[in-house]
């Protein structure tokens, strides 16, 4: 008799599982943002999500990728909108017809982090290329290592630009490690190896506040103009990707560049520090190229949708 009961119980469990499988809860319309690890790791998207979701009765969610992969995924039509940071490839994406509009929404900056002892002596380097040169020199004599993202991300692209400016080809050098992972894991690898790496400031501060003293690295070099890190929003080509949630994607871009969105970005803090700086419509003021045409387009779209553009 016991056996029979158990078999019944097992059958019932299976039925419940099957039922659970069949049920898909009707939810709010979903928006998939393909974005960089920094906007996720820093917690910015978690912070913005409730504001956007409430206002547009939506459910934003994101793919945690590097910029290279985010662009690749979007070019296959597997995401609704892009929030990434590699201007050269963003422009190429739009030029190829995959995207229709691209606008700079915010910026932060990159920092060179490394061991507090700073064996390579980057702290007093005159510019970023020189700082990298010092790391390479110390690396060749076995005194330091550099951990690269090595994943085709925006940060990876910036790092490679600086290496080429420094006239160093780091590939396959013994002191140059390619992690192939996101920003936070790369920092943790650099920490374990007491090596150097380049991070966007947001991810660095978030990880620092999370790990506190168990993270032994420190910011050694910062503030150089070529360490500027602007983030762009890209609207996908509706004709090319008819299956994407184009309307909600436009709403997301509008929200991010609106007065409300720009203020929220500025409000977001980790450990008392502001991580991202809204810059829609005033890129020139921080030394970035002007983008008057795009700004005009989005201000018009904001007005069409009864949303407030930020005060410029």
């Amino acid at each position, binding site marked *: 008799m016991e*056996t029979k009961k158990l078999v019944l119980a097992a059958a019932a469990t299976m039925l419940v*599982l099957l039922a*659970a499988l069949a049920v898909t809860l009707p939810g709010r319309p979903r928006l*998939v943002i393909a974005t960089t690890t920094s906007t996720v790791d820093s917690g910015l998207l978690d912070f913005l999500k409730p504001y956007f979701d409430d206002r547009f009765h939506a459910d934003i969610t994101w793919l945690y990728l590097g910029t290279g992969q985010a662009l690749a995924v979007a070019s296959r*039509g597997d995401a609704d909108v892009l929030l990434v940071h590699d201007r050269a490839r963003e422009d190429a994406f739009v030029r190829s017809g995959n995207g229709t509009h691209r606008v700079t929404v915010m910026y932060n900056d990159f920092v060179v982090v490394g061991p507090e002892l700073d064996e390579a002596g980057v702290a007093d380097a005159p510019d970023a290329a020189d700082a990298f040169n010092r790391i390479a020199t110390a690396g060749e004599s076995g005194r330091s290592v550099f951990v690269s993202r090595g994943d085709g991300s925006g940060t990876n692209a910036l790092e490679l630009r600086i290496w080429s400016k420094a006239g160093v080809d780091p590939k396959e050098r013994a002191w140059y490690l390619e992690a192939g992972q996101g920003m936070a*894991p790369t920092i943790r690898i650099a920490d374990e190896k007491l090596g150097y790496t380049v991070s966007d400031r947001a991810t660095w501060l978030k990880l620092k506040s999370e790990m506190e003293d168990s993270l032994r690295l420190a910011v050694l070099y910062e503030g150089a103009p070529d360490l500027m890190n602007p983030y762009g929003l890209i609207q996908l080509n509706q004709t090319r990707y008819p299956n994407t949630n184009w309307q909600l994607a436009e709403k997301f871009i509008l929200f991010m560049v609106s007065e409300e969105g720009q203020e929220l970005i500025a409000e977001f803090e980790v450990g008392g520090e502001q991580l991202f700086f809204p810059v829609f419509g005033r890129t020139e003021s921080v030394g970035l190229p002007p983008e008057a045409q795009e700004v005009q387009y989005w201000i018009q779209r904001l007005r069409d949708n009864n949303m407030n553009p930020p005060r410029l």
Partner: protein
Amino acid sequence: MPGWDEILSGMVRGLQLILSGDPGVIQITLLSLRVSGGATLLGALVGISLGALLSLADFRGRTFVVALVNTMTGLPPVVVGLVLYLLLSSSGLLGFLKLLYTPEAMVVAQLIMVIPIVASITLSAISSVDQETKQAVRSLGASPFRELLIILNEARVGLLTSVVVGFGSAISEVGAIMMVGGNLLGHTRALTTAVVLLTNQGEFAQAIALGMVLLALGFSVNVLLMFLRGELFSGTLPYLTARRSGPK
């Protein structure tokens, strides 16, 4: 020891999160159960049928198919994930199904891994039912269907084990569901993919909490298996025998 401190404080924080019924933890756990439970259920249906067919039927190329099934028990999840991603992608062959980044896609990915595991264990369980039993059944002149049921019943412990092993590999799998599910918060974030993300972000306590849930699930399923085995064998486990023979 700093490493152990982190693990221990993570376990304490983990227990707090679990006991307080943290909605995030519950949602992720349910999603994992739904995906891996579904994959195991469907995988058991297909896998046991396939295993039974391969062990009882005789046809040309049977040895080759058996070798194939056994090889597929070691399918690398990332390869399953990658191929499935390319197929399910909007611009892929099966893009019209719109399955990418859904729990259903995750079920399919795990199903592909569970079927060979269940089939392979079923195959060996049925093969090890002794010849005499099989001949006895046949000589009784039972209908083929009845014959099959009797043999499956003889192999029931092996069949149960195959399902539990299948579930174990599904629930602990991360590579394939990361790729086809996308680890979307509130939609396709499962226990394993959440652990990867949280570890990346340095949120070790949360990661350990979810790791503990994973272990607890695996443990429960195995306890259930032992219990079922014991019962189905009418008391081969000592404590069951003792209880049975005790005074009423």
